[in-house]
């Protein structure tokens, strides 16, 4: 389901020509409102690819599973590093798991 936007954290990517979530979404779904905050214009059409989440420099976006499919609330947060990605997953019961690995180049 569509990314949830933290309206406090989202600054509309002021410094960019086009906001980054809007730029990457493969479905042309993320959009800036008149208030310069991002929103998903067609929640039904989100593929949950998480490209917008990874692109957001403010950590303002989060994918949520629709309630019809999953219970409230689990979280999955990617952090993009230099040649690495770190995922933090917090499940329904509060269990935290972290994954970190290279996403570019080789270990040797």
């Amino acid at each position: 389901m569509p990314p949830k936007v933290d309206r406090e954290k989202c600054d509309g990517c002021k410094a960019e020509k086009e906001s980054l979530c809007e730029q990457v979404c493969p479905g042309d779904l993320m959009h800036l409102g008149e208030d310069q905050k991002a929103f998903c214009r067609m929640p039904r059409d989100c593929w949950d690819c998480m490209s917008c989440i990874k692109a957001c420099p403010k950590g303002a976006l989060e994918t949520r599973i629709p309630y019809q499919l999953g219970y409230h609330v689990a979280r999955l947060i990617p952090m993009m590093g230099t040649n690495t990605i770190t995922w933090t997953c917090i499940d329904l019961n509060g269990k935290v798991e972290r994954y970190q690995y290279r996403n570019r180049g080789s270990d040797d």
Partner: protein
Amino acid sequence: MAQTIPKDFNEIQSEMIETDLLIVGGGNAGCFAAVEAKTKNPSLKVTIMEKAHISRSGATAAGMDAINTYLRTDKGETPESLVKWSRAQVGGGPIREDLALSNAKILNETVDMLEEWGLPFVKDEEGHKQLRGRFDVSIHGEQLKPIMAEKAMEMGAQVLNRVVATNLLMDGDRCIGAMGIGVRDGKFYVIRAKATIVSTGGACGIYKSPTTDYSGAHHQTWMCPFNVGTGYAMGIRAGAEMSSLEQRWVATRTKDFSGPVDTLSVAFGCLITNAKGERVMQVRYADKGGDKAARFYRLNAPMTEWLEGRGPTYVDTTVLSQEDAKDLREDLLNERPSFVLFLASRGHDITKEPVEIYGSDPYIVGGHTGSGYWVDINRMTTTPGLFAAGETAGGNPNKFVGGCGAEGRLAARGAVEYVKNVKLPALDKAQVEKEKERVFAPLLRGPEYDGVTGIEMEERMQRLMDEYAGGIHQFYRMNEERLDHALKNLKMLKDQTKYLYAKDLHELMNALEVIDRLDVAEVLVHHLKYRKETRWPGWQTRMDYPDVDPKLDCFVESRRDQKTGEIQMSTRPYEQIIPGDRTKP
């Protein structure tokens, strides 16, 4: 970003571009095509027309956890052994062994290019690419798409992001480029090219997805929902020949949230189980190869269990240790990260409880099955000047990431040769004006128009196809009468596209997408009607013709008659190149 929405026809600006090679669709195949063309001839002007943004577009947007086809030659694998395996995966074919072999011969060097460009591969103790099945190797592929895109740009390809192709530009029967709309700038694009490669991926969203019912999430699909089959539709409208569309791709996926099953069953050994705890493939499909049976059997088996009262069905993840389960989740994060979130939102410990599985909605994807353009060995379609690669090109199933890349390169080689002898004719203004009127019509009807939105029509079409042309809710089954009903109503829908309206450029894109899907759906139904047999149960199940008909051991082909608009069907013979039992890998 603020959009420029033209209010009347004269306000629409046109962008005229001339290029040597136009690549429509900068995905997996498209990026490799661009790199190859620039390598072969650095002075060639190469232009990529991309619907989304090239850094995260198409099937690989979220990343990948494996390259499904790679030859571990140290284990004795050869191009021939891959083609044999691929043929068996589609039940013995028919497949285009000529195409498959040429692809397989440059497969490894193509995959190795990804490694050179910076894609991390998992290595085994001897330093070889780590196998997880017979032909698939593990990667940390979160950055796969940005890596391919950056290489295409670094090589000097011009990229037009957010430009959606809508039709081919034709000079008689020859393709001389494409036209499209800019969904950010509201412009009409006319790109004249000496050669054109179409690599827009497959067609998703022709059928209703099962999750639509439970959550309103219409795009909880496995295949990329933003690839709507425009590549096929443009060719159909221009009279190009399509091959094997009836060989639909349907997969077993995790239930309620379309997650991967091969990763679990192939890579982690979690077998398909039913409600009674039986290992379904071993108990009922031993003669078909058990857990290694052809892909469509593995898809059809769980759904048959449901139908016969032995559902739910699972992949038995309880065989996994906690450590394996964590490795598995890491793989999933590289490919379908939101599935990890789905499991977390159910507090699901997969080592204690198995994961439920179900069928997906059907897709037309020539990188998985044989559906797509009929192409020659240079990947030129039956339309001169038009090449096809990846999911868009037919005849050559089981390409996936490596194979789509390899085919992009082959199409580029074909195109680079072709452009040597081509001159562009003068611009056909009438053709361009006609297309401009067609594509902007829904927008110019205005937001107050009493008509139909693209989304409304899409839902109507998806339900029609689901119920009458063998969707998931009918357990993929169909018969002649239902297919006729589908055709009749598709004709109605096609006629009603004159009522489509859109209030902005995004909705305009949606309206044009449904027009494309309808064109693909119509041809697909003709293919399904023609194959009066059941060759690939699940992918293609005819209740009225339940057996294989040996006379139909051939390719089913179609072409839209340019004068009457009728879809004309024909066949082409299968040619076996690799000897041996076709159903054995």
